[in-house]
């Protein structure tokens, strides 16, 4: 029973951070049709920036509670700066080109961003445990959990509801859905598509950064962070259906829970299981489980 609860909570926590990151990836793909490999770097940048400032603030004797503010600030700063520079500097000039070529360009960006992290933050790991220590542990159905980890689930829920609300309840969401459905139609409706693209990319980047920033206190922030997360979120997005928020949520849950089960019950298959599911979905439902509707082009 306790073991099952542990698996469930581990799985949910893992799903939560996967969802936050993947939501950003899938929004960018849905709107711009860009599979962004550099998304892993947003995550890494978010984690480093948050960890760095949490450590600095703590050294300066400022209250640890500020850490939460720093996490959000780090995500926004990283997302806005990197997102803006990359979209305006590189991607904007590629929209007419083959989508596979754009994937390759984001891979080049990924390499560049990974190294700028090394240059900026060095190779030693960062620890930013303060926010986690602040919240302390809690007894839950016979097991002890860190409260911080549990809040991650809440954050993911907030992101999910936020995305849903934005897409379905705001004027902005309607415009976005028009562009997602058919870019040409969006243009002919008078939507400022370039602006939509820029904002979407920044928004997606912020979510990528938030995933990293929020997870930072629970891990040692070290080089290579983005490499693993990007393939995992690819798996999530592929399983759920590229471009679908609901898909990202379901995909995260499937992959998060499966991985948690594997880690506890059969650690040898931990990674295997994730990508085997991805491969199976691609083979039998290449559009993913919850692919968004496509316009008929003929």
């Amino acid at each position, binding site marked *: 029973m306790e073991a099952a609860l542990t698996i469930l909570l581990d799985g949910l926590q893992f799903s939560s951070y996967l969802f936050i990151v993947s939501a950003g990836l899938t929004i960018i793909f849905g709107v711009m049709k860009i599979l962004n490999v550099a998304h892993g770097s947003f995550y890494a940048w978010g984690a480093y920036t948050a960890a760095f400032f949490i450590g600095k603030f703590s050294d300066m004797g400022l209250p640890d509670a500020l850490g939460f503010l720093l996490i959000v600030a780090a995500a926004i700063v990283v997302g806005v700066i990197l997102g803006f520079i990359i979209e305006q500097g590189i991607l904007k000039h590629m929209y007419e080109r083959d989508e*596979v070529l754009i994937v390759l360009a984001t891979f080049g960006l990924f390499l*560049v961003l*990974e190294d700028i992290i*090394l240059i900026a933050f060095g190779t030693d790991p960062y620890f930013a445990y303060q926010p986690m220590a602040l919240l302390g542990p809690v007894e839950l159905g016979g097991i002890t959990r860190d409260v911080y980890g549990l809040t991650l689930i809440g954050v993911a829920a907030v992101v999910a509801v936020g995305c849903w609300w934005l897409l379905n309840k705001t004027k902005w969401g309607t415009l976005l859905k028009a562009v997602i459905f058919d870019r040409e139609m969006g243009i002919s409706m008078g939507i400022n598509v370039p602006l939509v693209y820029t904002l979407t990319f920044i928004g997606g980047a912020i979510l990528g950064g938030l995933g990293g920033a929020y997870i930072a206190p629970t891990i040692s922030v070290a080089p290579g962070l983005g490499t693993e997360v990007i393939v995992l979120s690819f798996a999530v997005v592929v399983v759920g259906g590229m471009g679908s928020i609901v898909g990202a949520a379901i995909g995260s849950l499937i992959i998060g829970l499966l991985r948690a089960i594997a880690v506890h019950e059969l*650690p040898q298959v*931990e*990674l295997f299981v994730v*990508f085997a599911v*991805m491969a199976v979905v691609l083979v039998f439902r290449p559009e993913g489980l919850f692919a968004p509707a496509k316009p008929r082009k003929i």
Partner: protein
Amino acid sequence: MFNDRTAKFLLLAAMMICVGGAFAPNWIVNQFMFGFSRALAILGLMVLWRTGLVSFGHAFYFGLGAYAVAILDSKFGVSDVFLRLMAGAVVAGSAGFLIGFIMRNYRDIFFAMLNTAISMVLFGIVVKTESLGSTDGFAISASTIFGLAPETKYPLFVIITLVGLTAALLVNFYLKTTFGKLTTAIRDNEIRVEYLGFSVAHAIHLKYTISAILAGGAGALMAMSLGQVDPESMINWTVSGELVFVTILSGPGNVIAPFIGSLVFEILRTYAFELAPQAWQLIMGATFLTIIFFLPGGIWSLIEKLGGKKNEK
């Protein structure tokens, strides 16, 4: 097969490289060994790339080739260079042929992603399996040639060069057959190819299998050149990315291109690493972006321009 300029150039260059290698310092011999090993895989990816297909997971076949060598070595003590090479190519080629039945129905991003998925499945298995060396991998004993254990790396270098030459000549020939010419045509218009009476699925399946054999051979040669294998540098998705990187860097114009591109890549990496150990990826990434933006035909298009079309397309 030998009567075009590309083939003649390849023969001549291979001869000169083999002779030159006897006098070259060790580090240059090494660069060529790594470069030409990798070039074999690039040759295969080039065939796919011409058809408009980019695999973001060919480290799967590269890794299979490398691990075939490692397992033959550690479990069966096989050290013969040709047996090792054959094993790598056959294992990867068979896997590619089987997976090709599925892969030939996929295009664009789905093709790229499905390849990523299968390569990560293999990565996941190897990393977590003690008997496959886990994250540490295996050290590989020195290769022997017909029972003889050479004292220097030169014989292996010559063999790699000659294998590269053979592969390049074969692919060069293939690209001139009807089957091989169906690259750009498939990328442009699959419906027309079908209506002309050719199965696009068969054409892609063959190309995919060729690319798997070559990537497997490349992995095997790389494993022998390095003397070790590990999942991080043989199977992880970043290795697939590296292979695509070199393919774009080389350009699809000619079978010579992968060899030049791979050498440039090795040299670039070595120097970037020596000059700025913390920024070599940055230099690689920036180079990659520059190529994508300003030199879509890769290094080969530059050579063509400079040489005023010395070599036929």
